[in-house]
């Protein structure tokens, strides 16, 4: 059971950051996973009054506030146009509409959860995150930060550029966590492939062997899928074995590539 002694709506990022330095305090995102924990919180810090719930389209990027809901990502025309619908595909299987109206981008990313559909997709969008103290950094660098880092995720920056994106996941049942999640993007002939729910946090791969340098064909997609499945490390849990995940990964990567090819 979650116990909270004090609740504070931060009036500034500085106030939130300062409060967050104390180990017994916690920043509230959507509060969905936090609520499942059996812990006592001294002060719950709510960012809901800081205007971080907006998606702003700028000339060269989308700036997405940390308190933007997953439902807002799912429904945003600009982000879905940029990603050819991959944004909606990555979040629409997460529990239900009511859940996604609460779950926030910041909460989903900051936890760097192994099961995260969101982290998997954003890693192939060449996105950057802005942390209040650490500043702006590539999302892949952010994913490597020690979990003990006590900072404040302010916003996520997704560059607007011509790219082709596909996101696919395999689930044992609708609305469950993914067994494997996979995102692939192509920008100017450069491919990025993220594999999540391994069940560890998503990791990113490039086409090191140049398997796709001749373009996407059934054969090259299959070869790339197998190569990614070999390079990624998988584990077993109640949802699937490592061996099963490896098999599914190869298929999802191939399917992502073929969808990118077919547009």
């Amino acid at each position, binding site marked *: 059971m979650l116990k909270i002694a004090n*609740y504070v709506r931060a009036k500034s990022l500085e106030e939130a950051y300062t409060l967050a330095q104390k180990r017994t305090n916690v920043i*509230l995102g959507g*509060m969905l996973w936090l609520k499942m924990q059996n812990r006592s919180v001294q002060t*719950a810090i*709510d960012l809901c009054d800081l205007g971080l719930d907006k998606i702003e389209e700028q000339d060269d990027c989308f700036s997405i506030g940390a308190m933007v809901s997953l439902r807002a990502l799912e429904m945003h025309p600009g982000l879905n146009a940029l990603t050819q619908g991959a944004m909606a595909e990555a979040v629409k299987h997460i529990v*239900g*509409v*009511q*859940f996604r109206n*609460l779950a926030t981008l910041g909460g989903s990313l900051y936890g760097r959860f192994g099961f995260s559909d969101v982290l998997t997709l954003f890693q192939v969008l060449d996105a950057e995150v802005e942390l209040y103290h650490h500043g702006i950094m590539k999302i892949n660098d952010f994913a490597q930060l020690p979990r003990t880092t006590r900072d404040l995720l302010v916003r996520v920056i997704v560059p607007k550029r011509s790219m082709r994106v596909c996101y696919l996941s395999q689930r044992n049942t609708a609305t469950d966590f993914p067994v494997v999640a996979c995102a692939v993007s192509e920008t100017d002939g450069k491919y990025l492939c993220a594999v999540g729910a391994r069940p560890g946090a998503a990791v990113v791969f490039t086409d090191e062997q140049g398997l796709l340098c001749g373009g996407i064909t059934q054969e090259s997609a299959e070869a790339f899928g197998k190569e990614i499945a070999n390079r990624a490390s998988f584990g077993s849990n109640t949802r699937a074995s490592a061996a099963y995940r490896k098999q599914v990964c190869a298929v999802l990567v191939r399917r992502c590539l073929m969808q990118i090819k077919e547009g």
Partner: protein
Amino acid sequence: MEIKVTLNGKKMVASVEPDTLLIDFVRHHGCLSVKRGCETANCGLCTVLMDGVPVLSCSVLAARANGHSIQTLEGLQEEANEFIGFIADQGAEQCGFCNPGYVMNTIALLRENPDPTDDEIKAYLAGNLCRCSGYEGQLRGIRNYLNWKKEAHNG
């Protein structure tokens, strides 16, 4: 701590603990249609509308509702009455425990998308679990309601 909320159209000031959940707050104030189901944010039984948006009241602090409007089925009887008979005609309620959450989310769906396809209905209501019916009855009920509305409008 003190919060100000509008509950089913009625402005109120109330004292809550920092960790009081919205489900406990609304039930304490007589809104017993809001059911406690899984408490793991999965079943949709505790759905309420917060500023018109469906959320899981088991996962929202009452303190976060400060300054917002909350609606439960008690405050939406008229809107629900229009289609709930179509659900009942299909025998889709059975034990009925999931029904208030189901109705609340259906109201949200039809406000957002007045003419949904079957796939859109299924997708929107995916977060509402029913352990009796298998969902087909609810889907038929909503479809019959939408067909009835179209016929009434056209004819």
